[in-house]
């Protein structure tokens, strides 16, 4: 009964937040932010994380509700904007739209590019709305569980977060993901620790006493490294076919409803996994859709169902990612990590205590996401043709303009030129890691979760007076430890299998007769 009461209360609060947001100022921020997000997302090479990195500085001077409205609208717009390039030029605007290329581009070649864009935009809207509903109903339950977490469980949660993020984002070689995750933990050790305020690893730099600021680090890792990685590649592309009609007939959607629901569920689950992100959700949903659908054989040849599987899932990740972010302060995706950094600046501390400290924040997020997805639907359908025109602008013109924006983003938070140097350092680190096929999401998650892991671990040991056994008897802790152990086991097995396959492939190539 308690839970039903809580859910009813949550729904009413979302309703109030929605009504409260219907002011000209908030609506202008939502529609403006969403449009900016759509444009940035549509440009190949600029991701949703980059969109938030570039536009986060605009939110510094806003009130909390305005900043939340603006940033979430940018997030929704940028995740959805990637489909325009995926469909019209076969290059995903954002990595989350990569699976959309497989069916979107064949549809564009058949002269149905507009219908594919329209279907993708409506699917994105459905995915976001579905995930918001799940977020509204699931978050109170997670809050109730999270309140039972002690220091030991919080430490294990942080550890589980980077382990699973490392496993999922590194693909076949989880060891790389874990190394980067622990590197993030090590980065978070810089500066004064939270128990004795003792400065660690500052190397004599006064500026490092406060720790590594999150926003410059995020902008560097995702912004600068992405800029370098994208521009060093020579990619020629041309717009395929004409856009044509955009809004698809309603009857086309009815057979797609089961796929949309399945993709929504997949997206939310992937979103709720720390650091996994939109691209994993989209690929997984597409893959499952292809195997489960009666028309799976048509996937890859220009199937609307394929577009729906990818686009519903990548947008459903948004609401899913907000669940661990709001309840446990663990971001579910890299753009949500950016959002977390922004709300920290506004004095809001997501986590188990959020409902007591800021009871209206979760309903506010839900309301802004709803309005953001309405704005995305409006702009996405009405601006499909102009959006394609943006793709005609050369990347060599658009991308360099990004760098001054990243500089402002890094500088404006702390008003220190040192933060710009830090951004550059993290940009170089991100670029090197990218070149060596290391994933970047675990690094960011490690930086965010590092202080939590460190403080919780030491406080747990302090509570148990240094004894490990009492800690091993806690039920939630046991579940989390089993999850971590399972991740290590499957990760090591996966790495071994990957290297064995690679060795076999290389041996087979060596055995091939020399053509000369």
């Amino acid at each position, binding site marked *: 009964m308690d839970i039903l009461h809580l859910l009813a209360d949550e729904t009413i609060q979302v309703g109030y937040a929605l009504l409260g947001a219907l002011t000209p100022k908030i609506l202008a921020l939502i529609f403006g932010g969403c449009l900016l997000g759509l444009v940035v997302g549509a440009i190949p090479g600029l991701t949703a994380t980059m969109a938030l990195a570039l536009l986060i*500085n605009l939110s510094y001077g806003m009130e909390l509700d305005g900043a939340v409205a603006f940033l979430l609208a940018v997030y929704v717009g940028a995740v959805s904007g990637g489909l325009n390039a995926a469909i019209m030029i076969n290059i995903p605007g954002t990595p989350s739209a990569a699976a959309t290329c497989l069916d979107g581009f064949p549809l564009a070649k058949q002269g149905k590019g507009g219908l594919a864009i329209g279907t993708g935009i409506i699917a994105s809207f459905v995915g976001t709305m579905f995930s918001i509903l799940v977020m509204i109903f699931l978050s109170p339950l997670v809050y109730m569980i999270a309140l039972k977490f002690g220091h030991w469980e919080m430490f294990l949660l942080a550890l589980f977060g980077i382990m699973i993020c490392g496993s999922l984002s590194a693909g076949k070689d989880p060891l790389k993901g874990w190394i980067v995750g622990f590197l993030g933990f090590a980065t978070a050790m810089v500066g004064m620790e939270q128990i004795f305020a003792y400065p660690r690893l500052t190397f004599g730099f006064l500026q490092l006493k406060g720790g590594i600021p999150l926003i410059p680090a995020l902008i560097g890792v995702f912004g600068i490294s992405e800029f370098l990685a994208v521009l060093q590649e020579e990619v020629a592309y041309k717009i395929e076919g004409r856009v044509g009609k955009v809004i698809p007939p309603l009857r086309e959607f009815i057979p797609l409803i089961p796929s949309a629901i399945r993709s929504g569920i997949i997206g939310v689950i992937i979103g709720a996994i720390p650091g996994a992100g939109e691209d994993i959700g989209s690929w997984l949903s597409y893959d499952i859709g292809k195997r489960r659908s009666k028309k799976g054989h048509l996937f890859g040849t220009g199937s609307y169902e394929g577009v729906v599987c990818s686009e519903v899932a990548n947008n459903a990740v948004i609401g899913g990612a907000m669940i661990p972010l709001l309840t446990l302060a663990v971001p579910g995706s890299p753009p949500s990590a950016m959002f977390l950094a922004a709300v920290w600046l506004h004095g809001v501390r997501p986590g188990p205590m959020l409902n007591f400290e800021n009871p209206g924040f979760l309903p506010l997020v839900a309301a802004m996401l709803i309005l953001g997805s309405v704005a995305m639907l409006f702009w996405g359908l009405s601006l499909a043709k102009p959006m394609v025109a943006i793709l005609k602008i050369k990347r060599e013109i658009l991308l360099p303009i990004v760098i001054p924006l990243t500089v402002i983003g890094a500088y404006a938070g702390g008003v220190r030129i040192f933060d710009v140097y830090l951004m550059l350092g993290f940009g170089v680190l991100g670029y090197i890691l990218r070149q060596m096929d290391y994933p970047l999401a675990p690094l960011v998650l490690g930086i965010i979760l590092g202080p939590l892991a460190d403080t919780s671990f030491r406080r747990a040991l302090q509570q148990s007076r240094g004894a490990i056994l009492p800690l091993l008897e806690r039920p939630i802790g046991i579940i989390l430890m089993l999850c971590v152990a399972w991740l290590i086991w499957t990760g090591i097995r996966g790495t071994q299998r990957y290297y064995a396959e690679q060795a076999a492939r290389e041996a087979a190539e060596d055995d091939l007769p020399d053509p000369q």
Partner: protein
Amino acid sequence: MTFGAALAIAALKMRVFNDSLLISPGLFPLILGGVFVLLGFFLLRSASKRGGRGQASRIVGTENLRAFAASPKVRKGMTLLLFIVLYVMALGHIPFLWASIAYLIVTFTYLKAMKLHWNVALAVAAAWAIAFAFSDLFRIPMP
């Protein structure tokens, strides 16, 4: 492995509070150092099993390094990075607007974005628009 060892040594040098390492600031970095040493060992072991020593000497060999440095992709990436480094260094000494104009002109020209006069015009317009929008419109502190 070296990074892990360095982290562990730095952690051991940190102050111990209340005569107990358990709550002291060095505990977690010490464990992390150990984890890096362990992960580094696993990486080295699996690499050596796959004939890593031979591959490593081939990779750091003169021929390979020369080919790496001559690769157009690497050169382009490094040049673009150099422009950013110079731009960021310049920001500490000259105003944002001028540094941004210079950076954009150089980068547009290097990337052959447009004809030179258009590169200059766009660089000036973009840098001015950014500076005006952020400092005057949004009142954001500028470098």
